[in-house]
């Protein structure tokens, strides 16, 4: 049997760190990168007698997420203790939610693949619950000992659990990317994967199509989309190989090693902890009144789906363009700012530039759009000059490069400054173009003859010569027209 006889089943658990200023159960700061244990309060280090107090900001972010995915925000949810011993878990238990999570259900639509093969799919979510993060064990800095840094202990997390709806690593990555974009879109998580603000665990199994679910193995702590893809691909192949060799899959937790590209077992089901969950008696049930939900609803930003529809309807963009421009909050914000400066009539041109030259340049420079050296107002200034025929698209690329390099200054009229300073204004004076055309015809008799002999290619060469002679500034449409009339005449 071959690999195509197997169906892959993937569910994701994502830990999104909520971007509150203070921790979920204490007033200590959540800022990243402080000296070890400088952001650990009495509550975070679990001194005797201390008690947790729930951060309303964390709850509010959970509500925002629930509303964004069309889930039920539970009117009453319960914090529970997950008991286990580990040095970076100061209380000996993690406060989480178990039987009654704050967000229940919901769904996210993802777009998988590129071009003609792209398709949309809806991934159902099981739940999302609030919990606290643990600290960190530092095994490298101390000889024969481990250090404990509790700065991260008590950082608020939203654990987002999907149904096992995904059927390939590509779908898993598309889902993770969509979720990543969404939590940043609704501003509940900074999404910084290097700093661990967005971590994925993947539950992977394989089965015969239509058959019962296979035994799953959970890959822990994948902190990049690339690792997520690699880890799933390796794991899937490993499971298929194991099964085809007559082996069995044992339920287990595995780790992905980015250096080898392999997954290896961390613990089997037999070693699994009995977490002895029970409701935390230090915290009352979390009651969320309808008025609170209504207020959060009122403060919600326009969501990607709605924005996409609006781009199609009001701006006349294609569905593909609208999807691309709403793939992340930053791109959408940049595009909207560009359109609002350039005018709605130029939306399509703005879209082309944001998705085309700007995206390519950012990609080359490995920059985020928020850090683009060309700001939306400057790009709008450029787009306007294309639209009013001051410059051609080709010259515009040259102007854009100049803007990128800071020529033209930081003001919105930077494009005009570059055009003026470099004399790039398009020549539309027919007389001036005619003069150039005549010079070119005189100097390229061979091409003229070829054209007259029926070689259309020779015409293009002549256009190129005219454009070159005008340093690219001649209006291409006029050049065409004049050239044709001269040759035809």
């Amino acid at each position, binding site marked *: 049997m071959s690999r195509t006889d197997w169906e892959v089943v993937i569910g994701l658990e994502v830990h999104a760190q909520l971007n509150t200023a203070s921790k979920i159960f204490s007033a200590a700061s959540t800022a990243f990168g402080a000296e070890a244990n400088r952001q650990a309060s009495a509550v975070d280090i679990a*001194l005797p007698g201390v*008690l947790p107090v729930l951060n309303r900001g964390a709850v509010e972010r959970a509500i925002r997420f629930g509303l964004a995915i069309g889930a039920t925000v539970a009117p009453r949810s319960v914090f529970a203790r997950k008991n286990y011993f580990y040095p970076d878990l100061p209380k000996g238990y993690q406060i989480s939610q178990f039987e009654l999570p704050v967000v229940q259900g919901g769904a996210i639509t993802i777009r998988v693949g590129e071009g003609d093969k792209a398709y949309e799919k809806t991934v159902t979510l099981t739940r999302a619950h609030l919990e606290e993060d643990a600290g960190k064990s530092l095994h490298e800095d101390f000889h024969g000992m481990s250090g404990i840094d509790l700065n991260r202990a008590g950082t608020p997390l939203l654990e987002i659990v999907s149904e096992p709806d995904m059927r390939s690593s590509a779908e898993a990555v598309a889902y993770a990317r969509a979720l990543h974009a969404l939590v940043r879109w609704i501003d509940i998580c900074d999404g910084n994967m290097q700093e661990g603000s967005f971590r994925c665990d993947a539950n992977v199994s394989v089965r015969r199509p239509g058959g019962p679910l296979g035994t799953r193995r959970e890959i822990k702590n994948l902190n990049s989309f690339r690792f997520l893809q690699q880890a799933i691909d390796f794991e899937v192949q490993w499971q298929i190989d194991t099964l085809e060799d007559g082996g069995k899959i044992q339920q287990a937790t595995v780790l992905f090693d980015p250096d080898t590209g392999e997954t290896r077992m961390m613990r089997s089901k037999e070693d699994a902890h009995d977490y002895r969950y029970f409701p935390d*008696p230090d915290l009352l049930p979390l009651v969320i009144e309808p008025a609170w939900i209504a207020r959060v609803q009122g403060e919600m930003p326009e969501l990607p789906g709605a924005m996409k529809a609006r781009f199609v309807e009001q701006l006349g963009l294609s569905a593909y363009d609208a999807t691309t421009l709403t793939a992340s909050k930053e791109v959408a914000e940049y595009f909207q700012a560009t359109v609002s400066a350039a005018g709605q009539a130029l939306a399509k041109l703005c879209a082309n530039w944001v998705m085309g030259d700007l995206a390519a340049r950012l990609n080359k420079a490995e920059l985020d759009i928020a850090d683009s050296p060309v700001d939306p107002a400057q790009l709008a200034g450029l787009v306007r000059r294309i639209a009013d025929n001051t410059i051609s698209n080709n010259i515009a690329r040259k102007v854009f490069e100049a803007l990128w390099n800071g020529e033209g200054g930081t003001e919105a009229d930077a494009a005009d400054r570059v055009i003026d300073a470099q004399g790039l204004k398009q020549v539309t004076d027919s007389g001036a173009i005619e003069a150039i055309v005549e010079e070119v015809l005189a100097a390229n008799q061979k091409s003229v003859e070829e054209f007259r002999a029926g070689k259309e290619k020779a015409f293009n060469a002549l256009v190129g010569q005219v454009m070159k002679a005008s340093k690219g500034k001649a209006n291409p449409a006029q050049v065409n027209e004049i050239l044709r009339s001269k040759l035809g005449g």
Partner: protein
Amino acid sequence: MINAPLSELRRALDARQISAVELATLFLDRIDAANPALNAFITVDREGALAAAHAADERIAAGRAGPLTGIPLAHKDVFCTEGVLTTCGSKMLGNFVSPYDAHVVTLLKNAGAVGLGKTNMDEFAMGSSNENSHFGPARNPWDTARIPGGSSGGSAVAVAARLAPIATGTDTGGSVRQPAAMTGVTGIKPTYGVCSRYGMVAYASSLDQAGAFGASAADCAALLTAMAGFDERDSTSLERPAEDYARDLDKPLTGLRIGLPKEFFGPGMADDVRAAVDAALAEYRKLGATTVEVSLPNAKLAIPAYYVIAPAEASSNLSRFDGVRYGHRAAEYGDLADMYQKSRAQGFGAEVKRRILVGTYVLSHGYYDAYYLKAQKLRRLIAQDFQAAFQHCDVIAGPTSPTTAWAIGEKSEDPVQMYLSDIYTIAVNLAGLPGLSHPAGFGAGDLPVGLQLIGDYFAEGRLLNAAHRFQQATDWHTRRPAAFA
């Protein structure tokens, strides 16, 4: 001065007949003299007490004294006190100096009260005799061969032997009321949530509540008034306006309906306790109260329910004592698991280990429903019983403990016998109700007997009022153990 009620101490301090420093010194000297025999204090903080007394004197001189300014008191060693050892009666915390004050401690410091030291207790408040203290048992001043009750034994002893006029305690299953009864003092545990638990080392979070010891209901009222109040750092703290628990002390008892649960008057109560309780109830009737029989049919389930819920919470609450960040760590160990095992095996005493094991068991996968959830259901039934009873009465009365103080070592071999001594007090914690114990006479061997009063939620004022009127008409609460006069 040693035996004076708080009201008299207040007058003497305000009239400058005695300074706060002199008063503190008086009690500190008594502690030094009596503590070797009674073992009531784990830590005596003479330096801190004198500094606080000095500050109180300045405050009194400036005319800014409050009701407790300059009044000496003792804290159960379960309350965190900044810069002073907080051991919780355990080797595990034998070296633990808290960097912060419990909320109750802060309130009393702000009131100008003078903390003399930290009192002995059963380890992590688990016990009914104070024999589970790592620092040895506190002894009953009425007979030092006997237990003083627990877990707040040291605080009860301190007040009974007048080593402190008032003391704080905590009550999870009777730990204020039972030792109060055993040592002949008054003790009150308020409604769950009235006092902040912030800074109280947790035993069973859903049951733990701070309480007050005093020689009289009036003294308890003054202390409780200063201890109570909302604290945003405790999510189970109740947001209610401040209350003066002394305001109704003098109200006549005419028309007060006292419910007598028939389940509290059955077999199991010692004859001498029954005689004293009956006499006290007769006194209440003389004061204008009526008695009516009520029923708490599920009260018999309180002990099994408690010994599921409390150990379950304790097993989790005590997980933080792992030798990693503070407290006892084994001197030698192999790997991480070995460090945990050795540190906890060495740091915890037998009763604490027993409850951790029980609690871990009842929360385990496959047993949770049968034990923990079932116990929570019983808890609701018990609370409903009380609400039904309060349809027919204003307060409930009965014995605080089935017997008077027993000999040290008498019940140590049989934990279940020890658990049964809390049969009348535990249901009150499960329901979250306020309860009070006051002296009601003496049993065999001149050992004190306590009467327990139980009120509906927030009826602390009424309980204190009833006890106060009783104490106006009787003198049991003024009797002192002769050996520590």
